[in-house]
């Protein structure tokens, strides 16, 4: 009896040992995710400390960005980031809505999957490809055909005219906004489509029953029902647009200036870092770029966190997907 029991006992003991090692390893790996967030935050604060100490709150409200005199302010990149993201959202939201409506309502069933996959392929294309496409293909077209028209026809208008002043460079905030719109389109579409699909058929049928047209069902029943998810999807797209780097760096113009004109060159936070960091000399310059990174991380963290909180409710229904 004892002769048999001993090996089994030893084996069980070994199993229990392995169990605690494995459990510990999975727990530590999971904690690493939290540590990563904390680490990013701390290292960014650490790195940007010299700049924050030197410029204080003025860093956020100064437009000057002069590596020679070592005067740095984040206002121009922040402005550019916000403006390009707004342009991107103004273009992407209606188109994404249109695609989502088409795919969930009017599209023949056999076409839904291929079109859905095609739109999602847009998300798989690396951002640098959008960058060189924007620089070599889109920007010349905008420069030769679209921007002269905007300057000539919208330029003289009161108020709106201020948005379309100056020479047509091709690159600039508007171009960056358009490229960003294409990039965030698949993300917003995917979420909208998902939430439109989970609208209960019964309430749609009820609306049809009282004589609503197909569009009225979409606009007055499906959209209000899925409002939370739609807003979540939009904010997720916004988070992407705010932090997108490579595509923007190619087409934004990289000028630390605030100009009311949308066709003027500008810069964004991410583009400034990508463009200048490797060449930055002097600790104050590097530190100022780190501070830009900190601002970007905080802004995108808030936007993405809000988006995820809104979408969490939908995911609770066992409908998690990767976007």
């Amino acid at each position, binding site marked *: 009896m004892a002769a048999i029991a001993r090996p089994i006992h030893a084996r069980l003991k070994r199993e229990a040992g*392995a*169990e605690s*090692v*494995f*459990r510990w*390893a*999975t*727990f530590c*790996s*999971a904690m*690493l*995710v939290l540590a990563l967030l904390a*680490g990013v935050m701390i*290292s*960014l604060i650490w*790195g940007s400390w010299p700049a924050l100490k030197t410029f204080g709150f003025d860093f956020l409200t100064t437009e000057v960005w002069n590596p020679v005199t070592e005067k740095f302010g984040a206002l121009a990149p922040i402005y550019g980031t916000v403006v390009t993201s707004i342009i991107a959202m103004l273009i992407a939201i*209606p188109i994404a*809505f*249109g*695609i989502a409506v*088409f*795919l969930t309502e*009017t599209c023949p069933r056999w076409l839904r999957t291929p*079109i859905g996959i095609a*739109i999602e*392929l*847009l*998300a*798989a*294309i*690396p*951002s*640098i*490809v959008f*960058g*060189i496409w924007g620089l*070599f293909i889109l920007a010349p077209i905008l420069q030769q055909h679209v921007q002269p028209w905007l300057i000539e026809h919208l330029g003289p208008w009161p108020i709106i005219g201020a948005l379309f002043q100056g020479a047509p460079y091709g690159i600039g905030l508007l171009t960056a906004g358009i490229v960003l719109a294409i990039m965030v*389109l698949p993300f917003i*579409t995917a979420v909208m489509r998902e939430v439109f699909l989970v609208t209960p058929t019964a309430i749609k049928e009820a609306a049809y029953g009282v004589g609503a*047209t197909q*569009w*009225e069902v979409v606009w007055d029943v499906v959209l209000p029902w899925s409002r939370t998810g739609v807003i979540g999807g939009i904010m997720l797209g916004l*988070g*992407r647009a705010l*932090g997108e*780097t*490579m595509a923007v760096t190619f087409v934004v113009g990289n000028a630390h200036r605030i100009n009311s004109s949308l066709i003027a060159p500008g810069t964004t936070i*991410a583009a400034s*870092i*990508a463009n200048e960091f*490797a060449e930055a000399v002097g600790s104050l310059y590097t530190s100022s*770029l*780190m501070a830009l*990174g900190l601002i970007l*991380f905080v802004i*995108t*963290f808030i936007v*993405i966190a809000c988006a*995820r909180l809104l979408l969490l409710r939908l995911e609770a229904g066992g409908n998690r997907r*990767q976007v």
Partner: protein
Amino acid sequence: MTPVLRRRRWFSTVALGISMLATALGLAVLAWILGTLIFEGFKGWSWTTFTEMTPAPLSEGGLLNAIFGSFVMTGIGIGLGAPIGMLAGTYLAEYGRRSKLTPVIRFINDVLLSAPSIVVGLFVYEIVVTRMGTYSAIAGALALSIIALPVIVRTTEDMLRLVPVSLREGSAALGAQPWRTITSVIYPAARSGLVTSVLLAVARISGETAPLLFTALNNQFWNSDLTRPMANLPTVIYNYAGSPYENWQVLAWAGALMITLFVLVLSILARSTAALFGGGQRGGH
């Protein structure tokens, strides 16, 4: 038919027609981008593109050292990110099922999934590059592994959750410890799901440029020393596309086509392995 009804119907038709146009526009842009990329990219594809080093301006050359560097750094990045990500995903799906920490970790992971990748570059610069005093391939690989981690954590958790509870119960009934159940029953059952998660992560990081710009930097020459700057396709594309030299621009397009084809093939592979595993379970981006 009353005028009001006619107007409502007309409006409905027009609005849905516009939604169809929006779809056509989205598809047209995709076709435009891919079409240009294939057209411009193939112009730069030749035997020498794959067998020679990156050239000086206005001379002949290829992308060999950049292709090599990208493979090395993506490989190390996945080698670091995949095991840790899978273990973390295992915690979320198995051990931590009822832990109060799990929703928090999952939430933070989802936020990291969409966080700007350039910030990861800054983070690695701060903790590795300034400590080592030099840009290096290992710093680039570390940055890529940090980008890959949340992708793998999330997909692993999703895939493990698809494994039926009855398998866990059956294994437990035979007296297996949880770790044995996980490694001998659940992982094999979810094998193609786990493969999907790695494929998705490779697809995600192989096109990443921003985190490499000031971690791996670039190198015009062949380098296999991990502690020194290493050429990589995304950075070469970035530098060459922005240059005024025509031969560099041609190589930039050629490299962009290479990366895009690689990523698209991986995405399609990931999608089909996921479909194989989950029976219609979607594993897209």
